[in-house]
């Protein structure tokens, strides 16, 4: 017999009591039937949400000025994607903890050049566009600084930009070929051709929607729809679902950190919170080995309710 000290939070006493009949197959069968019926009833009563996807076509038709300003920000790399950093490009060093720029050290593995991928290449694919082709040639022959100054002039005039008579109308001067490029891209978007161009760029078969999704999320249309549904980060959005459907209540703790300082104003919030949740998950995983935490059940004595009959019969 071992003389090892009994640790009540780690060791279990040897059970010397009785056993009663137990039908495990019956229990399992009843459980499946109950859960199955509950599932059918919930589905019958509440259904499930299916808000249709936003396309570049729907976005550019609903909010053409927002589309045009986003397209311009792709041209000078000032969009969220343009300035993202790894894994898309080298524009930024990205979030960090101390000296660790984790994403940057992994590198650019999904290269996105917003100028080429979102604007110039799609425009070049349009047939029979002599005026556009001339403007594209002007663009590609210019220096980077000239291109930047053109976009800057275009952006400066954005507050007065309108969409009239099916065209993007700007009061910008010294914007070079940019007004024609942006107007042409808006026309392309409104027909649905840009959705296709961004997806099939890699070949006939593709299931990768990285480019159109990044482009759409650079605009404010998607976020406006999400905000209405309380889905944004500062609305505990991670927990929520469209409409009145219950969402992911189990993500309450992940969502919580984004609501409080310093995370709610930090550019590093994503990495910091990922780190916190990783540590807390490890704590949950290794709970049996953490003194203090593993004695909470014994100290709180909730077990006395669970095993009250056992204690009554064996006193």
């Amino acid at each position, binding site marked *: 017999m071992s003389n090892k000290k009994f640790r009540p939070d780690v060791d279990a006493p040897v059970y010397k009591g009785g056993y009663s009949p137990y039908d495990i197959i019956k229990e399992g069968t009843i459980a499946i039937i109950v859960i199955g019926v509950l599932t059918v009833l919930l589905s*019958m*009563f*509440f259904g499930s949400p299916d808000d249709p996807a936003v396309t570049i076509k729907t976005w550019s038709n609903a909010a053409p000025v927002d589309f045009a300003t986003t397209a311009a920000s792709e041209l000078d790399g000032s969009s969220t994607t343009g300035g993202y950093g790894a894994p898309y490009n080298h524009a930024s060093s990205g979030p960090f903890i101390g000296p660790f720029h984790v994403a940057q050290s992994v590198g650019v593995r999904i290269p996105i050049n917003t100028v080429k991928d979102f604007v110039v290449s799609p425009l070049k694919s349009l047939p029979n566009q002599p005026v556009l082709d001339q403007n594209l040639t002007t663009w590609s022959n210019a220096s980077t600084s000239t291109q930047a100054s053109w976009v800057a002039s275009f952006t400066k005039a954005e507050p007065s930009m309108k969409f009239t008579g099916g065209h993007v109308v700007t009061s910008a001067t010294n914007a070079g070929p940019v007004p024609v490029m942006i107007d042409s891209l808006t026309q392309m978007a409104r027909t649905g051709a840009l959705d296709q161009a961004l997806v099939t760029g890699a070949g006939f078969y593709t299931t990768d929607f990285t480019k159109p999704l990044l482009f759409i999320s650079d605009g404010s249309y998607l976020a406006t729809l999400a905000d209405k549904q*309380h889905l944004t980060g500062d609305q505990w959005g991670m*927990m929520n679902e469209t409409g009145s459907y219950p*969402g992911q*209540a189990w993500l309450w703790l992940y969502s919580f950190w984004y609501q*409080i300082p310093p995370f709610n104003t930090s550019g590093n919030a994503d990495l910091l919170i990922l780190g916190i949740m990783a540590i807390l998950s490890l704590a949950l995983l290794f709970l049996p080995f953490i003194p203090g935490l593993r004695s909470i059940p014994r100290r709180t004595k909730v077990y006395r309710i669970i095993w009250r009959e056992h204690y009554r019969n064996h006193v």
Partner: protein
Amino acid sequence: MGWLWSWAAIFPLNNLGHYVHWHWFLVSRSNLIVIILMVLTFLTALFLPFPGRSSRKENK
């Protein structure tokens, strides 16, 4: 079985949700109901008597 899915959903939850807002705490009514149900279910499971008591007393 066409009648089953042509019914769905009887009370679709597609209208914009109601939210409970208290300082920086913001939760949807649906999620709050789910969380409250979870707690109530847990408490009910703890306190509700479990059948077969006499059989277990005999076998103790």
